[in-house]
């Protein structure tokens, strides 16, 4: 549990951080994932760029038509922030189920997203909540939709010279609601997801007008469950409609076995949690 030797840089501004970033560097925010990987020597960047001293990155802001969650916003903040509860409830719920108290106080939402663990909670919530990732580098800023941000296990669409400076989530209008639910590895909600699902819905006059559902834990990345999302649109959101939508949770999804479940079991859980997340999202939507 002793890392290889590396350079450590603690820039005071984003500009300084960009100039320190290169092919063999890694951004350090809360360090809850990066430090263990480095100590196990599974990952050995030449330079660690610690963005922890850059001011202005630790706020959740109301930006008119969306809210913006900065790179240094901790899970504990995401889990308890009023703006997030109002506009991205699924993300707040997902953040509240990450790790334990110490991890939630130290780790960051953007860090977890950039790390792209296959069983992390917040990526699915970000996809369902139609979030956009703000990736910034010395050469400019690009915005990446959450559904295309998660590429593979521990691989995101971020380039090595970029920092995920913020996460943008559209503000929720009337009739909109979202939720996240999972089975944790140690049972209940505890620990990484064996399987989990996030759902966002928009309801109008008793009909589900729009919906987005995403899964975590079942494959190599968090991903949209397009079939389930399509299936609930146009329905009345009844239990029967929810269950029918849940049955389509695995359309286009490749379920992988791991220590925590067989393909059959995880596929089954995906359906269970799509149903539970949908039900809770519909309840949130009022």
């Amino acid at each position, binding site marked *: 549990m002793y890392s290889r030797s590396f350079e450590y840089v603690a820039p005071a501004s984003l500009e300084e951080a960009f100039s320190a970033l290169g092919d063999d560097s890694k951004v350090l925010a809360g360090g809850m994932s990066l430090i263990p990987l480095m100590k196990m020597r599974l990952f050995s960047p030449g330079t660690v760029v610690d963005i922890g001293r850059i001011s202005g990155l630790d706020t959740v802001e109301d930006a008119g038509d969306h809210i913006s969650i900065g790179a240094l916003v901790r899970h504990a903040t995401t889990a308890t922030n009023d703006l997030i509860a109002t506009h991205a409830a699924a993300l707040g719920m997902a953040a509240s189920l990450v790790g*334990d108290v110490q991890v939630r106080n130290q780790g960051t939402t953007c860090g977890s997203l950039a790390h792209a663990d296959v069983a992390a909670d917040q990526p699915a919530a970000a996809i369902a909540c139609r979030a956009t990732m703000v990736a910034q580098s010395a050469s400019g800023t690009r915005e990446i939709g959450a559904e295309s941000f998660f590429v593979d296990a521990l691989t995101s669409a971020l380039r090595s010279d970029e920092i995920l400076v913020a996460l943008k989530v559209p503000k929720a209008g009337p009739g909109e609601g979202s939720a996240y639910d999972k*089975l944790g590895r*140690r049972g*209940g909600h*505890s620990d990484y997801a064996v399987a989990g699902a996030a759902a966002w819905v928009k309801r109008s006059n008793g009909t589900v007008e729009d919906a987005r559902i995403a899964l975590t834990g079942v494959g190599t990345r968090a991903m949209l469950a397009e079939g389930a999302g399509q299936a609930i649109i146009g329905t009345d959101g009844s239990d029967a409609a929810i269950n029918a939508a849940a049955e389509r949770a695995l359309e286009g999804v490749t379920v992988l076995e791991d*220590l925590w479940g067989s393909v059959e079991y995880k596929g089954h859980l995906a359906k269970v949690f799509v149903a539970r997340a949908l039900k809770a999202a519909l309840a949130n939507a009022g």
Partner: protein
Amino acid sequence: MATTSVMGGSVRRREDPALIQGRGIYVDDLQPVGLLHIAFNRSPVARAKIKSLDTSAAKKLPGVIAVYTHDDVAHLGPLVAQVPIGKLRPLLAAGEVNHVGEAVAMVVAENRFQAQDAVDAIDVDYDILPAVIDLKKAASNEVKVHDELESNIIHTWTYHGYWAALGLEDLGPKVQAAKDRDDAVVVSLEMTNQRLIPVAIEPRSVMAEYNPGYSTFTVHSSTQVPHALSGAIATTFGMQANHVRVIAPEVGGGFGSKLNVYNDEILAAFAAKDLGRTVRWTETRREAAGSTIHGRGWIGTATLVGTKDGEFLGYELDAIADMGAYTQNFTVAIPLLGLWIASGQYKMPVSWKVDCVVTNTMTTDAYRGAGRPEAIYYLERVIDAFAHEIGMDPFEVRKKNFWQPDEFPAVMGCGFALDSGNYPAAVDKLIEVSDYQGLRQMQEKARAEGRLIGIGVGSYVEVCGFGPAVLAEIGFSWTSYGLPASFNGSGLVRVNPDATATVIIGTGPTGQSHETAWAQIVGDGLGIPMEDINVYHGDTRDHPMGIGTFGSRSIAVDGTATYQATQMVKEKAAAIAAHLLEASADDVVLADGAAHVAGSPEKSVSWKAIAKAAYQAHTLPEGVTSGLEAQSTFSPGNATWPFGTHLAVVEVDPDTGDVELLQYHAVDDCGNQVSPMIVNGQIQGGITQGIGQALFEDAIYDQEGNMLTSSLLDYILPTATDVPSYDLHHTVTPSDVNPLGVKGIGEAGTIGTAHTIVNAVVDALTPMGVKHVDMPLRPKRVWEAMQKARA
């Protein structure tokens, strides 16, 4: 006098101010000048010949002082084991490796990072051989782990034949006759008691120093057995015992994993001597799964024979226990601890056979409970299945077959006698405190609503307080380490000139609160306030010979020795007080911090005056030597046999198989309690580890022998947020094995829990037809069992 020094009082732990403020000193906290650091190159494969081993690149790296391989240490022989059945562990791999994590080379460097860099630069070429992992395959000898052993089965324990000298009757025919009865109900379950990784909060750590001028070793180690380590080093290096000083400072948890002498401890001593420098190795969490012993790892079939009225006619176990690749301290002897309690709290003939097999995995040895949780699990699970089969309440069937209170001491078929017990009383208390009838009504109502609520009960009896001198004949001693044969207890009590007291004991805590409990014993005996008593432990140079902390033995054996020493000091103090009071010693009463003449409380002398007089030879009466201290040893005539019955309430999610533990009630009886709060703390920790085995923990090797759960990401431990508050109660049935009437409580919680939880989950699933689910009861396993039953 402070009232807190009364024995049997719940007092605050004296250890806590240092420990919870981070002021306790552990081996890795020590910072001697010029310290060097050790790291090990470990095998990434389970079984292979080493074709080549090249350390030249590693030796050239910055900060690297030395790299050692087998050839450098071959002259020291293999690691000494107390019960040397099987193949002993080479200090460093001798041309072959036999489990993932086996130490191949040892690096010594200026700092830990450089040491790890050098480890990575060592080039080992392995010729991989098929690994033996599956226990049934191992027992079949299809592939032998070690060419030089006749069989992978290195020992077989049978109920009647485990100790020929006892001349025990083979009860197998009786069990068979019971099976053949027309009215017999025979229930069998094939079950796994899975391998576990003991996880102490403090990983193991050893620091060694050699002084060539004095020819002495000073070794600090995170160990439960400092005297055994001292003996092992002296034996290995051919030194006289008093030239090896081992110190166990604060030890952050052990659970049996530090009840072992390890190759890294011997190797650290070797490097210290070879280099003339102080060296330290501290285990990393990642390597612990391959460097520290594992526990459990049994498969087997338990069979209970009884009548439909619930009378037990016989019990049979046929099991295979995984020893791992190499034998260490007790390895093969661990199942024997289970054998002694194979019949649990019940009066019935037992036929028991456990084959001990070697596999290409880490060594197994004592882990909290050590053989006893396995034995009780098999028994209590099949009893529960039997109760379901005949449709009888699980408490009722147990009560029908208990040894009755007037039958103690109860001689079991294994030759040992249960010292004392009142098993029905504990069950009655549990039924009352858990509101058992109310729970069953709640369950019925919940079932009607489609909820899967289960109520599980489980009893246990434990054997602990090791131990009786006679056990030395079958290996329970430290003779392999050159130490005296029997597992005595020892204690030294000294009243200092200022009337404070110093207590030095032969066992030390790894969390058991010796410093509090022993101050209670001595404070109670002498009438000296607890805060004036210091308790020391864990230094072999000048502390009384101690066997170590394991087998829930400290209080029953070393506690008793300390009690005896306290009485001796008290007698001497009375003689000195009598002299000062000009009275007869027989008339002197020591109470409330002073001595007075019986009937004349106004005529008294304080402890301060007595202590002062004790150290001034010229003021002492003739025939009384100066000083005020005594040392005693205690050799118990029997082990002690705690017992209890637990009850768990669970709810299973029918969609996911997720098990929620709703309630946990326990009634435990460990005889008299020196410190009830500490007793409850031990039970809480024990129950939590039992829950860990039942629901979470699983040390998994794949069939190639890769360790899949070497990090705490994959090896799931229960945490405070995963378990409910426990409802703890007691009955008190004193032991007559020692004058304190105590038994021991370190392992009881663990022994009583795993089967209780599984019984509850199976009870929840009984309406669906599920008869058994193997531990750990992870959601996927429970769901799969439900799916199978639904199909």
